């Protein structure tokens, strides 16, 4: 009596009708996979606009400041920027001790540029910072500093400045949350990223009421929509937002 075709894997030839079926099934699976690949690749939306000049170490000269976070005010502007955040490699902030020791001194250092269209940063080669001796004159070296723009409430997402400015695109949102927490815990300056209705981003460096670091107090609010109350100041090229960490409100539960 006729039996349905039966496949035995160790036989060298499967029945013809089965071979045809398997061929079609395989093509079906491959077409399914190709469609999934195309759709998921085309719907990826999150990205960033920054650059990380990885592998291109340059020399920078300027005035080193320890407040509000370690900064270099470069002698010569690079592009349209003179104020550079200073950070160490990987997930480590610039050493507060080195910043304190060299505060307001003219220095030269080696590092890699990280920047987007708003802010810039130098990943400093460890131990490359040299004092040039002559203490800079803060009055001339410092851009018009710390003008208060008043109290305000801002809505946005707290991220670590290093990844967001270009080390990772995207350096925001839930997938990046753990990384941002590690970076900020490691001393990378936290920034608030806000977005207006046209999609334009703005950055606000987050510090305490007296300009002190608040990294450890905001770890639980990173990479989520939040509102924060505080006082806005302009320092060099930077927006500095002086906040009380207790005023941070999570928008999603």
């Amino acid at each position, binding site marked *: *009596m006729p*039996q*349905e*075709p*039966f*496949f*035995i*894997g*160790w*036989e*060298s030839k*499967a029945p013809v009708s*089965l071979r045809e*079926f*398997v061929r079609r*099934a*395989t093509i079906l*699976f*491959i077409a*399914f*996979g*190709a469609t*999934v*690949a*195309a*759709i*998921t*690749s*085309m*719907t*990826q*939306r*999150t*990205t*960033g*606009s920054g*650059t990380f000049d990885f592998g291109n170490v340059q020399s920078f000269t300027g005035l080193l400041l320890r407040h509000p976070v370690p900064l270099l005010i470069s002698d010569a502007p690079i592009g349209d920027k003179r104020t550079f955040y200073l950070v160490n*490699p*990987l*997930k*480590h902030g610039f050493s507060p001790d080195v910043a304190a020791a060299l505060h307001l001194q003219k220095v030269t250092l080696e590092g890699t540029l990280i920047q987007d269209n708003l802010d810039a940063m130098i990943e400093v080669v460890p131990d490359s910072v040299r004092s040039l001796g002559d203490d800079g004159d803060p009055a001339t070296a410092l851009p018009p500093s710390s003008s208060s723009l008043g109290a305000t409430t801002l809505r946005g997402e707290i991220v670590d400045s290093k990844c967001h400015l270009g080390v*990772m*695109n*995207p350096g*925001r*949102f*839930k*997938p*990046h*949350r*753990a*990384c941002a*927490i*590690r970076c900020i*815990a*490691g001393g990378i300056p936290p920034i608030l990223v806000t977005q207006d209705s046209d999609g334009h981003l703005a950055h606000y460096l987050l510090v305490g009421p007296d300009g002190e670091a608040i990294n450890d107090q905001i770890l*639980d609010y990173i990479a*989520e929509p939040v509102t924060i109350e505080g006082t806005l100041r302009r320092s060099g090229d930077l927006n500095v937002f002086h906040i009380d960490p207790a005023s941070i409100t999570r928008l*999603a*539960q």
Partner: protein
Amino acid sequence: MSASYKAVGWNAFKKRHDVVLILSVLLFLAIFIGIGLLRQPKLTLEILLMRAFAIAAITLLHVILAIGPLARIDRRWLPLLYNRRHLGVTMFVLALAHSVLAIITYHTGSDLHPILSVFVSDAGARMTAVPFQALGFLALVILFIMAATSHDFWLTNLTAPVWKTLHMSVYVAYVLLVGHVAFGVLQSETAALNTTLMGAGILGLTGLHLFAAWSQRNIDNDIETTADDSEYAVVCRVADLEENVPLGASLHGERLALLLYEGNKVSCVSGVCQHQNGPLAEGQFKYGCLTCPWHGYQYKPHDGTSPEPFTEKIPTFDVKIDDQDRVLVRKHPNPAGTPVEPALI
């Protein structure tokens, strides 16, 4: 089938299967990465690769999980089941590449150990702080154990029931991965299409499994014990038997396969293949043996042993045919490999 676990042979079918598999995976990655680079040249390469490996892996996982129920619904899918372990190992390699890239990109370079960081960095007691990467890590551990024990060496040493149970944990891994995606990337890639795809995957697989179970609900007619002869149970009538096609039944939950062969002989063996618990009652009588539909393992119907040089054996059952042409099977199986005189019709 194999004389021992070392003798798993490579035949033309297996080789072609793996060439097609690897080319398909490369095609998938090329499409994903190609489109990604064209659309978003600034996307960090590690992240693009991390996503490409992840989505290739989870897509392959859906294919792997679909093949089982498809083969139960329509047996022509069975050839794809034959080498499913190769798909599993390939999927694990992709998932591993994704995981390693994620750990290097997001977790190295801080004061915390990277693996510890996966578990604690973003963990919190609220929906927005589910540590989705920890779920991925646990899934990876399961997939690793499965890939590492996929070889017949482990099947033999762990025994088929233990091995099969172990490999059912792929469903635990799947649930963990749904959480990994839902609490992770779907919180930022909020395009409705992504959520829809994941949802379609879950619904599709659940539907297939339910449908397969429903279509097989009567596969083993459970036998009522007859009052007149308590040692034997009536399984069917002689007329119900079709030559060379086994009939499945279950006796107090124990599956058996009843076979009419060589014109007039009726034998009964366990319905569970020793290799991977395959359904022998869905096999066929080939080359003088009852042949398992999954991997072609074979057993002689009268004594449940595999032909030389193979060493597998399964329990046999005593069979008799009464004067009303009913086929009766003794309720207690004989030890594996015990010869039983076939009943004659």
